[in-house]
């Protein structure tokens, strides 16, 4: 059952939204979502890498021999990751500092490799780009949402702007590591409740 282009895009936003539905790419999800801004920044970086790598992999899918495909994927992905790394250093240095080693670690993010292997290697260029874009946007949404929840409760701010006023005593637990896990777990629970597939 072939999906339309729109369906390919939309599936990444809800049905297969990473990291909730596909439990992949948890590390950056947990690590960089102390604030909305970080979550968004990470998301954008992943979108870029995902779209570019999906495009290139699908372009080259007839040339790449299947035995060395993983190696080829890794080279392609790593290349774009470095591009992101350099560009981010040049134009968004503070973000680069907060995201730290998680930018280079996009290279081992299961989502990117997973999409290359599971989708781009088997589908046409346009589809692959749409798929990558959808997945990337989905990932960004998840990260932003998690970042929003953690920032609002953990620091009482949203994009750095105070939400509850000065009398609010932030629930610091949320921006600490344990809070990240618990929060993600509970959001996953909400997702399961919402989408009784």
């Amino acid at each position: 059952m072939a999906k339309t282009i729109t369906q390919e895009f939309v599936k990444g936003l809800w049905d297969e939204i990473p990291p909730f539905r596909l439990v992949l790419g948890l590390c950056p999800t947990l690590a960089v979502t102390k604030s909305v801004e970080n979550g968004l920044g990470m998301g954008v970086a992943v979108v870029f890498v995902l779209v570019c790598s999906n495009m290139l992999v699908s372009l080259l899918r007839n040339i790449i021999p299947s035995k060395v495909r993983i190696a080829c994927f890794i080279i392609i992905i790593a290349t774009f990751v470095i591009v992101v790394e350099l560009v981010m250093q040049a134009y968004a240095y503070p973000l680069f500092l907060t995201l730290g080693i998680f930018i280079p670690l996009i290279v081992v993010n299961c989502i990117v490799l997973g999409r290359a292997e599971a989708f781009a290697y088997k589908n046409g260029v346009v589809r692959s780009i749409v798929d990558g874009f959808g997945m990337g946007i989905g990932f960004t949404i998840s990260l932003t949402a998690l970042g929003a929840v953690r920032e609002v409760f953990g620091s009482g701010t949203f994009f750095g702007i105070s939400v509850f006023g000065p009398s609010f005593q932030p629930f610091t637990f949320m921006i600490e590591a344990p809070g990240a896990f618990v929060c993600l777990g509970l959001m996953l629970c909400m997702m399961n409740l919402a989408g009784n597939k």
Partner: protein
Amino acid sequence: MVDNNTVDNNTVDKKKFIVSHAPFWHDGSRISLRNYNIALAALPAILLGIIYYGIPAVGVISLSISSAIIWEFVFCRIAKRSNTIGDGSAAIIGMLFGMLLPAIAPWWLVIIGTFVAVIIGKQIYGGIGANPFNPVVVAIAILMISWKDIFDFNEALMNYDLDFVMVYPLAALKHFGVSAVDSFSMGDLLMGKQSGGIGSTFGLGLIAGGIYLIIRGIIRWEISLSFLAGIIITALIFNLTDPVRYAGPVIHLFAGYTLIGAFFLATEDSSSPVNFIPMLIYGAVAGFMTVLIRNIGVYIDGVIFAILIMNLVSPLLDKIRPKAIGKVA
């Protein structure tokens, strides 16, 4: 739970009898009874806290108990489970949680705390008996790292003017060394003449409650005693290496959450081991960790995190068990 075995036509009788499996006797123990006994044992400590800290303490304790019960009720409703308020475990969670708080704890803190304890700590794991961590300890740990000021008993209880020095011994020890706690006599500490949580300062009351629970067989004595032994031995070792920086066992034993931890927190059923040797290890290492955190960690009191760490290790510890009869290999 009645067996649904079919009855042969010949033997059908008008009267229905209860048919169930052996044994047909039971020793009459019940979860609710256990929990009421725990509440009874905690009563002296709570009463003294109320005498010292007055109405606010009553408020905190009652709000804590009632909100814990309400959370449990709400969860059971939402999850469509049979109501489990009756077993008293939510009430105990609320009560112990309240006992650890300072008397000035704001209402929202109590409510968030009991939510974390009852829902996150216990219910989402499937309710009583399934929680891998002590719910009260989880709640206190989470609140402690979020709102440090409220758990800084020195600052929190500044407005109280009682007939003893309102100093939190462990904070004084941490910041100013052993000389700062010289003024505390063992008697004062046992009588709760120190600053601290509502129900965690009255050493004598807690010990009495603990002994009561041990005698009734409700808590496992191995855990309590080895916890205290772990604290004494570790404190002694530290004290011997540097008597100026590290206090002796008395302060460690009677200040902070030690006693309530030994008798009421570490002994929580579902998060602690049940075999003999694991119980000893569990208690002793928890005691060791407590003193270690107090002396070289960043926290003023280590009981909470020590227990949490040992809760984590408890399933592994429980793998050390005596060989079952006739077990081959």
